[in-house]
């Protein structure tokens, strides 16, 4: 921790900081909090503990660190200490609403990190094992799994952004939603070209954290709101730490099978594997996708939309 020189290179890469722009949400801010706790200048509190648990574990801060601070290790150790000290905070971990949980155990079986288990009649999350990928969100038939703080990636947050973009009267060109993985495609794209890239008016980029967090319902909502197509950018399957890429592919196949039976073209939902650090592949893929759905036209005629 002492090797942190407070340069702030980690800022650019942290999805939590990018969402709030608050120092306390950056890896540097969290290190300073921990430093304060260790030196005794700060008293541990639920607020501080919760901040330390608010992390998507993408590890980009560690990769970007000019001083080689092992941030992942530091934060993991801090979380373990906070749990030992009795802090019962949620942060960005996934939680189950026990009142509606049907105990189907699907979330327990599917968690690649083995973070969920059935104890004393309830599904509980091991907050140290949970990587906040959110792959469990769509598995729950009771809609009983939530992520404490989504930083723009939770289903309701995505839904409102979809509605806003596709129903903006000042943007008649809006026709597609592009979901980007917060681990692979988006950070590379964001760090490399975002500032120079002219954002298309035809599609909105929404970050999903892991693509496995994307709910089928969110994709359908995009079409209900008038999207001509949806592009999902995930990690290459063998690079996804959370099993999210395979999962989102299976879910989208389930939907496109329905689409086919409804005489809606299957290629209105497309999935592209974009490895880390390949923004050109993303822009080429998005351009090709927009051209394809542009030639298809709207999925259906929409009353009251130009």
């Amino acid at each position: 921790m002492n090797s942190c020189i407070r340069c702030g290179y980690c800022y650019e890469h942290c999805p939590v900081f990018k969402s709030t722009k608050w120092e306390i949400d950056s890896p540097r801010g969290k290190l300073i909090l921990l430093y304060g706790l260790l030196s005794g200048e700060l008293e541990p509190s639920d607020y501080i503990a919760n901040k330390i648990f608010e992390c998507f574990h993408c590890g980009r801060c560690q990769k970007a660190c000019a001083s080689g601070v092992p941030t992942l290790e530091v934060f993991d150790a801090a979380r373990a200490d906070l749990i030992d000290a009795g802090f019962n905070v949620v942060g960005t971990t996934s939680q189950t609403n026990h009142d509606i949980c049907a105990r189907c155990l699907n979330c327990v079986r599917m968690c690649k990190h083995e973070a969920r288990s059935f104890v004393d009649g309830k599904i509980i999350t091991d907050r140290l094992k949970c990587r906040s990928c959110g792959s469990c969100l769509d598995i729950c038939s009771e809609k009983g799994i939530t992520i404490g703080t989504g930083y723009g990636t939770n289903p309701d947050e995505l839904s409102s952004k979809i509605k806003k973009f596709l129903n903006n009267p000042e943007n008649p060109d809006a026709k597609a939603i592009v979901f980007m993985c917060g681990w692979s495609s988006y950070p590379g794209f964001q760090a490399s070209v975002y500032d120079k890239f002219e954002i298309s008016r035809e599609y909105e980029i929404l970050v999903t954290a892991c693509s496995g967090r994307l709910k089928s319902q969110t994709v359908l909502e995009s079409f209900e709101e008038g999207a001509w197509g949806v592009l999902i950018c995930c990690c290459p399957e063998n690079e996804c730490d959370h099993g999210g890429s395979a999962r989102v592919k299976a879910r989208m196949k389930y939907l496109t099978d329905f689409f086919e039976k409804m005489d809606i073209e299957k290629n209105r939902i497309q999935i592209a594997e974009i490895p880390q650090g390949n923004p050109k592949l993303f822009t080429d893929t998005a351009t090709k996708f927009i051209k394809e759905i542009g030639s298809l036209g709207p999925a259906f005629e929409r009353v009251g939309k130009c």
Partner: protein
Amino acid sequence: MVVAEQKPLKDILSYIDDSKRIIIAGCHGCVTVCSTGGQKEVDILASLIEIAGKKQGKEYEIKKITLQRQCDPEFLEELIEMAKDYDAIISMACGAGVQLVAERVGPIKVFPALNTTFIGVVETKGEWAERCQACGDCKLYLTGGICPVTRCSKSLLNGPCGGSHEGFCEVDPKTPCGWQLIVDRLKAIGCLHTYATIVEPADWSKSRDGGPRRMIREDLK
């Protein structure tokens, strides 16, 4: 649990062809546990119907509800009250739930969204398999806890047929021979002698052949 799978969407759409105001009713029971008829599936079906409607130039008015269980009359009351303003109900419960809704809801059309397939178990994530045919005369005490009626494709009660080949069934080479499973299990628990017990011809009147069945418990009346 009762396991069910969703009907083809085109079938569901054909049922509601002349309806506009629709209720989609899920069930928090077995069909939630087998991920076919819970709140999430209600949402997805509602969205699919809405999109399919728009594709055909038709606007549906869809109300979504998920009941505690559709096989208990008390839990239907909210749905019955709501149904007065709608043209049709699509039930995402098992066949029992759909029927109780139809019996109780009055003169409104009730359609199934699911095909009820079997009583079964979770074998591994995302895979369910049949274990019980509700024959009404359980033989599991004789067969090491493996059901010959269900696991044997021909429901034979006294050992395998000649189509058992290297532990698999001639009806489907991917299906383990039920009687091979039974014999292996009897050996494992030291009860192979029960294999020699001749089982009398089954009384199928206790199964579906005797017509619709009832269970009455005077102590619960």
